[in-house]
């Protein structure tokens, strides 16, 4: 039985969403622990989130 490509894309989007959620959550924890490092943490968070987002979009456009 063939699984449609759109199911795979959906799985990847779920994964990407979980990844970005985890990054956001960890960043919140880190900021709460060290508020003076907020700007550095935010930068790193946005870069990592952007990289994951790229994968999500690649999956959506491959469908």
């Amino acid at each position: 039985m063939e699984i449609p490509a759109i199911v795979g894309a959906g799985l990847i989007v779920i994964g990407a969403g979980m990844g970005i959620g985890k990054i956001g959550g960890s960043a919140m924890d880190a900021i709460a622990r060290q508020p003076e490092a907020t700007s550095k943490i935010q930068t790193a968070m946005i870069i990592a989130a952007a990289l994951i987002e790229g994968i999500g979009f690649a999956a959506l456009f491959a469908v």
Partner: protein
Amino acid sequence: MRRNFSLLTLLFTLCFVGVTFAKSGDENKKDTPDEVKSFIKHHLKDAHYFELFHGAKMPLPIIVWDNGLKYFWSSDLKKVKVKEIMNADSTITFEKLAANDTVPKSAQDYLYEAQNSEYSLFHGKMLAGKHADLQLKLNSEGKKKLISHSPLLDFSITKSVLMTIIICFFIFLAFTALSKSYRKGPIPSGFGRLLEPLVLFIRDEIAIPNIGKAHYKKYMSYLLTVFFFIWIVNLAGMTPLGINITGNIAITFSLALITYLITTFTANKNYWGHIFWMPGVPVPMKFVLMPIELLGTIIKPFSLMIRLYANITAGHVVLMSLIGLVFFAANLFSFGAFFGLTLFLGVIELLVAFLQAYIFTMLTALYFGAAVEEHHHEH
């Protein structure tokens, strides 16, 4: 928290109720979902004319390379409806659709023909021929493909090109005014006061932390250009001008290509050393890592291209769909809900416009930083 949640639920319920109402209520076929869908598709594509609102079309020049530059105005193009004729050799040719023909929609097509020259615009491609010359064939996937003509090189000043030129001119004016105002004193005047903090933001938050104090200066001009270009173009996409420049993959491709070229040509020995002969890993591993790292240099700008394009396209689609929903609102209640949702997403899109410009600049600076990083430590 609980209260917020129930408010959100109410809002979404309202939206869905509104959609159901709209679907059951509307019979007069003026604002159908099909019309909205084609409107969104139309918006995402580039166009050969500039249309502010329905009926007010400004023609733009069409320039093609057909053994020499040929040019004419897009007002010369006229829509011709055709029907598909299946031939014995399984090719498809076009015949003009007469007024009394009853051909199913799936066997109909259309193209724009120039009145005073031998060119036509067929689904976004400029061709040297009229509808009678075209010949299509079904490919293995069942899609129609043009086989008689190859598309001409198209240098047309389209809507996106025109707006890009205008925006570049605006950016040029704003920044020359900013640099001139420094001759009078250390504090910029007028519009420059808005720009100066952003320039400093790029320098202090993006360029210096990522590239380093020693090398950041030579990259500043590109980082500033790319940041302000993407940001202002994204903001212009949010205006009712109906333009979609960064949602065009050719534009993001060019930006990513420039990033790639600058990274490649300013990279030092250390950068290439890490690609071709990764220090600190066993020799067999070096051979495995070489193609991966080499591919990585291409994938990095490729992801830049896709990220910007996909974000802006997705944002425009969502926003246009919500605006489309406003027209289906059956009662004032759902109209208000759609309007509020559209407004909310519009504000989010303003944030995305900045965020995408920031991320593009940030990652570009990161790649530049990797290219000029000095060899500090033995691995």
